[in-house]
């Protein structure tokens, strides 16, 4: 699938090489251990009874048929279930609302958990769930964020608007009034979601008394420390009494960076059944109905250009469907704030006004999903540029070129006050176009226009991926925490081998490998001698986890700082042991060398043994042990430039699109593991194409999900995904490793690229996603 993969599998593994991934043997041979693999004595299983109405008062819940010992049933009225999730933000214009662990009083979306039943296995739990009868009194339903609200989803927000904010810079009205052309686009994007191969899953075990027992929660979460902190607060436990373990996790994409009501319900149930581990493993139907989704947006935008194609102003409004609840702990602002904050992308514009709203509806909650809002905003922005180019009679590539932020412009302050530190967009664009062979494709396009044949279109998208957000860059949502930092402990064991305890997590991205490379290089040991552990709050000090393309920048940065500290300590110790000046000593591949001599004077293993076991040989004032724990916070973020260009062929008789070529060039800064980086880009491109053409969570007007299984919710398979040609420009970022995040960029382009390619091929504006064959065929029919 990836044409540019570096096939080398050296075992040395310094930064910039692709050593064999440490996790692969386990994961590829079926030896991974996921939450669903966990077997504990006395373990019982949970099934949730989910709402069959999108909006209804709960009149009664009858479970008289069930034996309360065999099948305990929990509802909002059960002891302890008074607690709720309140996603908090200090932003003016934010309305705080509650998400109960089980629907209380009324249900706000079809699929919401109303009750939970316990049984000896999942089959029996589902049997028992059928014995719970809920009596509903239906309420009017609102499905779309831009429709007139039928009945408030939450009493606290009668208009259903949970967040409203206007981003503003310059004088956009004057700028548009003076513009040579003003174009207007209205675009609607399609709700879709993460759909990791492993769904949500948890096992909760409460030991001891209800008031000060110990809770162990195995969870397929991306954010174990944050979950520990939040659960301790919600359950009024000392944080030391809560342990969260994220074992192997099969994909997350943001969907698992949420503390869900089901998670809280499971822990509350465990408190009522101390000593009984309770397992809940979500099935695909539950995932589609109740896990967070995203990208259900509408944009109404105007852009003004001068005669040379320079953007002079952008004005507009955006509606983001929040769903029934403000996602915990990220808030109802997660998508709307990102949409308004990064709409202008990598383009220079001084005059900007965009009003965004996060609106509650009777649909499943929206939450973080790879690319958060930007696959939609990049699509909207690139639509404006394509319309601008057409209005001015300009080439669609040229109009982008004149507006891109360049290296001479950085640091460039976006109209929303974020600072772009890269400016390498034009380089990415040039590399894409060269690789694509634009002239040849244009000639073929012209030939077919003249002689007949399926039309060809060339589309492109330029984007900035905001990665590794430090405390300043992550301040936007004004939540009661700042996700700018990570901790890491690097420990040399007495045998000289290295253990890394990271607060970050991995859902398949290869963090065991990447962090080992960073630490091996910084300490001066072999890649094979480094072991990375994460995902257990009892092991590592602190970390926010995996989201926002932050792992390489922030966790990598913390690992690097701790590793450098440990190396310094080891060198100080070695200098004493081997009677050399610390400045003349270096540590390489686990051995110490004195400048000018090719022979090692000793090994790290020798020094580590002294550090732990032979205090008699320690220099005065040298504390035993060899480890260091450091936090790292980049304060700002690292923008990563990216450009995608594709050539497509249309079949006008069916509306089908064949992707002929797809080129992506990104600036990942310094690439730690080329194969992993390409894998991240390829995976995110595939997810982006899925979202652009196939995946769509469709609700009917009564709020019923019509795409409730993978028969109707279309995930792309390998047969739908083209070969990708991936290139890099490596412009080191301003952080100790020089790295930029690469987790999300690929998702940002595809919808924009395909819409732009269709416009190029047949002059049709695609204003609604997904771009299905029928949608395109109908547009072609209108044109015929």
């Amino acid at each position: 699938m990836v044409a540019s993969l570096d096939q080398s599998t050296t075992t040395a593994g310094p930064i910039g090489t692709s050593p064999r991934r440490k996790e692969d043997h386990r994961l590829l041979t079926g030896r991974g251990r996921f939450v669903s693999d966990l077997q504990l004595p006395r373990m019982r299983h949970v099934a949730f009874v989910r709402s069959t109405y999108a909006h209804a008062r709960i009149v009664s819940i009858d479970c008289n048929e069930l034996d309360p010992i065999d099948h305990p049933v929990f509802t909002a009225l059960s002891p302890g279930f008074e607690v709720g999730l309140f996603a908090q933000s200090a932003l003016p214009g934010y309305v705080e609302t509650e998400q109960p662990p089980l629907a209380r009083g009324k249900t706000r979306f079809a699929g919401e958990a109303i009750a939970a039943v316990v049984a000896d296995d999942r089959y029996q739990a589902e049997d028992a769930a059928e014995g719970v009868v809920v009596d509903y009194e239906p309420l009017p339903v609102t499905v779309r964020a831009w429709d007139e609200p039928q009945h408030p989803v939450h009493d606290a927000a009668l208009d259903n608007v949970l967040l409203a904010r206007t981003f503003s810079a310059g004088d956009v009205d004057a700028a548009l009034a003076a513009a040579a052309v003003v174009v207007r686009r209205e675009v609607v994007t399609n709700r879709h979601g993460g759909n990791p191969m492993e769904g949500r899953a948890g096992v909760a075990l409460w030991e001891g008394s209800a008031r000060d027992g110990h809770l162990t929660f195995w969870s397929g979460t991306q954010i174990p420390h944050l979950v520990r902190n939040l659960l301790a607060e919600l359950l009024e436990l000392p944080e030391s009494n809560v342990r969260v373990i994220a074992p192997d996790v099969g994909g997350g994409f943001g969907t698992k960076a949420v503390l869900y009501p089901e998670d809280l319900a499971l822990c509350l149930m465990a408190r009522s059944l101390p000593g009984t581990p309770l397992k809940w493993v979500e099935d695909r139907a539950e995932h589609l109905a109740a896990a967070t989704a995203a990208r259900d947006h509408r944009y109404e935008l105007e852009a003004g250009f001068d005669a040379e194609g320079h953007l002079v102003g952008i004005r507009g409004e955006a509606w983001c469907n929040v769903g029934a609840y403000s996602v915990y702990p990220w808030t109802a602002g997660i998508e709307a704030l990102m949409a308004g904050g990064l709409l202008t992308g990598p383009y220079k514009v001084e005059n900007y006004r965009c009003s965004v709203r996060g609106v509650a509806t009777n649909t499943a909650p929206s939450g973080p999903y790879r690319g958060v809002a930007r696959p939609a905003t990049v699509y909207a922005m690139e639509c404006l540029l394509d319309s601008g180019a057409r209005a001015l009679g300009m080439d669609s590539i040229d109009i982008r070129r004149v507006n891109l932020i360049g290296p001479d412009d950085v640091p460039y302050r976006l109209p929303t006050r974020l600072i772009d530190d890269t400016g390498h967009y034009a380089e990415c664009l040039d590399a894409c176009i060269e690789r694509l062979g634009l002239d040849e494709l244009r000639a073929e396009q012209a030939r077919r226009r003249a002689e007949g044949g399926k039309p060809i279109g060339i589309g492109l998208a330029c984007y900035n991926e905001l990665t590794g957000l430090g405390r300043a860059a992550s301040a936007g949502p004004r939540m009661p925490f700042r996700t700018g930092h990570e901790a890491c402990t690097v420990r040399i064991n007495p045998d000289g081998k290295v253990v890394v305890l990271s607060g970050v997590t991995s859902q398949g991205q290869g963090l065991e490998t990447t962090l080992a490379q960073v630490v091996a290089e910084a300490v001066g040991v072999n890649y094979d001698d480094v072991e990375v552990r994460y995902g257990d709050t009892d092991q590592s000090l602190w970390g926010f986890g995996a989201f926002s393309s932050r792992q390489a920048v922030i966790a990598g940065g913390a690992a690097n700082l701790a590793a450098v500290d440990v190396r310094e300590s080891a060198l100080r110790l070695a200098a004493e042991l081997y009677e050399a000046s610390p400045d003349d000593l270096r540590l390489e591949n686990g051995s110490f060398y004195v400048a000018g001599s090719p022979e090692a004077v000793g090994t790290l293993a020798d020094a580590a043994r002294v550090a732990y076991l032979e205090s008699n040989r320690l220099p005065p004032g040298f504390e035993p042990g060899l480890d260091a724990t450091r936090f790292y916070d980049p304060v700002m973020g690292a923008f990563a430039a990216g450009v995608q260009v594709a050539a497509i062929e249309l079949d006008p008789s069916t509306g089908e699109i064949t992707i002929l070529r797809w080129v992506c060039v990104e600036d990942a800064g310094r690439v730690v593991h080329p194969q992993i980086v390409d894998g991240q880009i390829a995976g995110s491109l595939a997810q982006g194409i899925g979202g652009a053409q196939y995946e769509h969570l469709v609700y009917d007007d009564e709020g019923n999900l019509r795409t409730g299984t993978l028969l109707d919710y279309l995930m792309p398979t390998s047969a739908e995904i083209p070969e990708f040609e991936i290139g890099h420009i490596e412009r080191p970022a301003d952080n100790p490793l020089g790295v930029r995040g690469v987790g999300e960029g690929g998702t940002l382009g595809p919808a924009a690229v395909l819409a732009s390619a269709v416009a190029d091929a047949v002059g049709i504006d695609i204003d609604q996603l997904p771009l299905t064959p029928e949608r395109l065929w109908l547009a072609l029919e209108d044109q015929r």
Partner: protein
Amino acid sequence: MKSAPFDYHRATSVDDAVAVLTASDGEAKVIAGGQSLVPLLSMRMAQPTVLVDLNGLAELRSDRPTVTDGRARFGSMTRHAQLAIQTHHGLAAEMAGWIGHTAIRTRGTLGGSLAHADPNAECPALALACDAALSVQGADGVRTIPAAEFFAGMLQTALADDEILTVIDLAVPRRWGFAELARRHGDFALVLATVTELADGWRVVVGGVEGTPVRLADAEAALSSDASTDEVGRTVEESIVAYDDLHATSRYRRAMAAELVRRAVDQARRTQGEAS
């Protein structure tokens, strides 16, 4: 997504299977490849009291079809994968290759797909296009149902509760064409079309537009009178009443049916006959 409790009976013969079906008073389900039934069980949309498993019945399997007088006879437990690689019935092989993915074709069966009667599936259209004679066995003995009478509606057939499909007898068309449109590789068709030349003339069959696959008499007449491909396509669009659903509108389905019939006509007219 876990099935409700059920009993399981592995049939030792067709008679044995029929006996269990007869005794269960309509509450039993026959399982062949299970590719449609197992998801229905998991979603609890089907809650039979007993599953009657035909997988042990060698008499229903056929590694290769029996071919006589321009017709090919397949056992109902013929897997799609076998259908796809056999060389006696080219259209059956072509259409079977479009069913699902490798794993699905390896388990799924011709008889199971016909008995399930999904209008968007390949096998029902194949049966209608090739004038299938479907042998079924029940408590009252054996009878043969022509494909034209077998499909009663969306997921409904003429099979009685105690009956099992045993043999599928397909005419081998002299010439044929097949075209299918699906959202993804391996999906059920949005629309599919077959054009077959049988001993008694042309057949044009479209699947995915109504509750059962449909024969289009006007298109067949046009084809028999050597009408142009475009003219045949026009009759298709005029004679079909397609349904709307999540994946396509009626308008798109009608237009695609015409387009696919055109493609199938072109293919059939280009090819040489395979039956003697």
